[in-house]
């Protein structure tokens, strides 16, 4: 008896069809999680730690999603996630969207070359990479326009670089946040996978 089972290959674009019931559920869960991340970033982390000058939680989530799902699939989550942040904050597409895509590509590039399991020491390595990429975001932001080309010159000439204490704190904070987000998203993606597989296998 042949069983028609649709397998999901890693690093292959596989979007669960929204038309199906489980596809809708997956879509709803993903959008909800993205909104939760954006709300947590703007209403919790930015109130608790107003200094980092970077959407730390969202950048960590981009790295984790790329490690868990691979670059092509994470792209479908990275772009909406940053667009949600942009619409909730600036109201226009900002530099953070561009940087998040570059970060996802960089993470994918690194994960392919290192060829290591995402556990133990490698987790620490990726946490360090995430912290370094957030530092890069903080360093580049003064030179890049956030909202308009007109602001580019103004920002580049007089927007200051964050102090070293802020950079150091953000670095430690990102390193601490990475494993937490990694385990949450890993479990979340396992759950999503289970929901999707349940339909194909017709599990009751």
């Amino acid at each position, binding site marked *: 008896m042949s069983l028609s089972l649709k397998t999901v290959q890693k690093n292959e674009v596989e979007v669960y069809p929204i038309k199906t019931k489980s596809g809708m559920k997956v879509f709803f869960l993903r959008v909800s999680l993205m909104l939760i991340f*954006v709300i947590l970033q*703007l209403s919790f982390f930015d109130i608790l730690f107003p200094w980092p000058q970077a959407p730390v939680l969202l950048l960590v989530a981009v790295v984790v999603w790329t490690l868990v799902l691979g670059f092509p699939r994470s792209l479908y989550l990275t772009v909406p996630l940053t667009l949600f942040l942009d619409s909730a904050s600036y109201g226009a597409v900002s530099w953070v969207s561009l940087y998040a895509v570059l970060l996802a590509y960089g993470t994918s590039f690194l994960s392919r070359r290192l060829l290591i399991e995402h556990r133990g020491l490698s987790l620490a390595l990726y946490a360090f990479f995430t912290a370094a990429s957030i530092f890069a975001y903080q360093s580049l932001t003064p030179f890049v326009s956030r909202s308009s080309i007109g602001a580019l010159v103004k920002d580049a000439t007089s927007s200051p670089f964050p102090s070293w204490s802020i950079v150091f704190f953000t670095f430690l904070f990102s390193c601490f946040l990475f494993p937490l987000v990694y385990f949450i998203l890993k479990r979340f993606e396992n759950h999503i996978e289970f929901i999707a597989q349940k339909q194909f296998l017709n599990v009751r």
Partner: protein
Amino acid sequence: MALRRKFTQTKFFRALVVLGLLGACLFFQPRFILEPLRSVIAVISSPVEGIVSALGFEVRDAFHFFSSIGELKTENERLQKDNIRLSSENSKWESVSGENEELRKQLGLLPQQKHDLLSAEVVGRDASGIGNWITINRGALDDIRQGMPVIVNGEVLVGRVSEVFASSSRIMLLSHPESQISGITTTGEAQGIVRGEHGLGILFDMVLQADSLRAGDRLVTSGLGGELPKNLFVGTLQEVRLSDDHLYQRASVVPPVRYESLRYVFIIKNSAEK
């Protein structure tokens, strides 16, 4: 034999396409893409933001309490001294205030400082630190309108309502790069523009060289233009210098409150001072 992918199937190509699209959006800034989404997100997230931000404030206050235990004794002594000084000053001002009210009545002038205030809680903050805005839990349903001034501690101006959603609003703080209001020193000797310095501070700019500007002067709103009530306190002047073109004077302004620690604010819905 290794299977060669077409260039259009590579990750690099996909990244290029997405970067190109986002780059075009960044360059042309088509607001219609995110504008509809913005209102929807504001409505959906508004109730959750209130809970999450309250939690954030509580955790921050707890951190602050434990980190400042060592300073409590010194702080307490300083506050006791301040209390004695302010009590004596207060008794003096009470008599002056009564006298002022009596004279205003006799001259037929309108009573001062009659603001119709609405309290609000901060539920969101800018992630960049440079944009410098806050989100509050009051919106169009509470009759909030664009341009309304936002104050704290009685008469301290912190910003203006820049965007209004159904149950939340965005406040552009005075330190926002696009914030510009008309200001005057309490001595009345210098008038100029109060504007944000890239989200990090406030600058009192465009003050004529003939005007007298000194460090330590107190800065208030002038009320010119009719958008803001006059005499709202903005801050104290510090470090007076000439502008880059040497035509005007300018000074850094130290606000009396730290914008990153704002939790409750008041919106002036109507004012007799306009």
